[in-house]
């Protein structure tokens, strides 16, 4: 969905809502609510994203996307509250939504994979998870992710359990034989 610029009335309404919601500051001056631009860019998989300018610059600074990936600037399409409490408020359909895999499964991978393996394997699984989820839904994608994690970590788990059993047996023999 291509974001549309906020009209003056919409900006006023948003400012009121933002001031009144929990954490907002009642009576904050209008200068503390700013209209920002959103930018359109394509990632390496040629997927199109709309993000507010600040988030885009954050992605660039983190080295996630090149600065020249930007293809369009859409003025006045985002609102941001400045000051001690700040947030970008956009209609949810316009927010880039990175679907995150089941956190417990991801933790299992972090525990069992070596540092060198983590980057590639977890990144690859996250990319495929995101794709499968958009095509088949969350439940199917979660199940697929768990199957991948179990199949990928089973040899390591088996080795750890074997080592633990051997250590246990050695200890038993030392004490009783």
């Amino acid at each position, binding site marked *: 969905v291509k974001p549309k610029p906020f009209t003056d009335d919409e900006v006023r309404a948003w400012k009121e809502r933002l001031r009144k919601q929990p954490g907002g500051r009642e009576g904050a001056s209008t200068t503390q609510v700013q209209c920002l631009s959103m930018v359109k860019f394509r*990632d*390496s*998989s040629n*997927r199109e*994203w709309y993000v507010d300018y600040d988030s885009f610059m954050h*992605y660039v600074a*983190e*080295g*996630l*996307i090149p600065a020249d990936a930007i293809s369009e600037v859409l003025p006045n399409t985002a609102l941001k509250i400045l000051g001690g409490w700040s947030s970008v408020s956009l209609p949810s359909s316009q927010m*880039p939504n*990175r679907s*995150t895999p089941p956190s417990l499964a991801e933790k299992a991978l972090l525990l069992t994979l070596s540092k060198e*393996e*983590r*980057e*590639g*394997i*977890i*990144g*690859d*699984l*996250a*990319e*495929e998870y*995101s*794709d499968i989820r958009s095509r088949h839904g969350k439940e199917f994608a979660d199940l697929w992710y768990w*199957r*991948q994690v179990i*199949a*990928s*970590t089973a*040899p390591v788990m088996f080795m750890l359990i074997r080592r633990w059993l051997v250590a246990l047996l050695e200890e038993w023999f030392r004490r009783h034989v």
Partner: protein
Amino acid sequence: LSGPKNYLGQFEEIVLLATLQLGEHAYGAKIRQKVEEATKRSISIGAVYATLDRLERKGFISSRQGEATPERGGRAKRYFKVEGAGETALKETQAARSKLAAGLNLGWELMGGVS
């Protein structure tokens, strides 16, 4: 026998061929999908990486760090490239298989064209 270490296991051979097919776009997820498509079996990413690591240790492939994207949670891709030794190993393995199958009436043709 010369250079028995050059022979590849069946899964190693499949992974190596998938990496060759993908060319410069060969990274874990794509290789896994390619192997799954070809074998019609569910393949785990861990099995693919274990094989790729083994092939890299043998000097058949090399890897480099690629770009990170938002949908990868900011994690970088690891691209793989088949080296000359890998291509030689593929040829030797397939030649050995052709030699063994020669004269057998299997009713189907082995992958040919390997010199």
